[in-house]
């Protein structure tokens, strides 16, 4: 995993799917369903789709918990296919400035009694995604993720 400092000039071949969900826990499932269909149509296997779902769930839960003070807000999602077969996910919200990638907590080790119970979600996102980038632009938090077919530990 590497963190992009600048967006790359990706060649998009399917600028397909754009959706908007309320910034609540309940609608997250519909965003995951939509992404799953998009990923399946782009040739991702069932197991790869589950890992993409994990990435999106972690990010959306983070936004709902940290970026918004009220739930009367929205999150915009855009899924694009890239010419190398990967998926580019762009997630934006108008909540308070919040960089979820600021957390540098790593893999758990040691004894269970001493283990932390937080910070695993973003760690998993960084492990599974090929690239992940956060920007604050015009009052928006914008997170872009690229996930390839060889994601996670098998990459």
């Amino acid at each position: 995993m590497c963190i992009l400092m600048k967006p790359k000039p990706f060649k998009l071949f399917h600028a397909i799917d754009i959706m908007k969900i309320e910034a609540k826990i309940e609608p997250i499932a519909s965003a995951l369903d939509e992404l799953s269909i998009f990923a399946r149509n782009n040739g991702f296997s069932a197991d790869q789709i589950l890992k993409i779902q994990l990435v999106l769930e972690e990010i959306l839960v983070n936004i709902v918990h940290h970026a918004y003070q009220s739930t009367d807000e929205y999150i915009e999602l855009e899924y694009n296919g890239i010419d190398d077969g990967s998926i580019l996910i762009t997630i934006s919200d108008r909540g308070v400035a919040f960089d979820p990638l600021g957390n540098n907590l790593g893999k758990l080790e040691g004894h269970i009694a001493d283990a932390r119970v937080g910070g695993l979600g973003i760690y998993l996102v960084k492990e599974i995604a090929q690239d992940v980038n956060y920007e604050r632009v015009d009052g928006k938090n914008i997170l872009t993720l690229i996930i390839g077919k060889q994601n996670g530990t098998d990459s």
Partner: protein
Amino acid sequence: MEIHFSKKDDVTIVNVKGRIDIVTSNQLSLRCGELFGKGEYNVIINLADVDYISSSGLRQFLMIGKEIDSANGKFGICSLNGMVKEVFTMSGVDSLINVYPDEAEALQAVSCN
């Protein structure tokens, strides 16, 4: 997500079916809390029928593991598949909680009999 208990000697086996995500995961702690309330701290969680877990689920396993550890109980997880197995390994949770390939091996390790 569905959760069913079964008992073998001094061990309670928690069979989970479905997805362990932000919506369902707290069920796991709630149901295991029922066991702890009865003083049952030798527990195996069988994940054979679980195909998805997110960090909210991992958090529940860590909290359950901590509670069993502080009560000097025995805890094991078994029958992890596909993405679930990969996420346990990727996160390092499999180095903190004993993971067994199947229920028979888990029972052998967790049972005091």
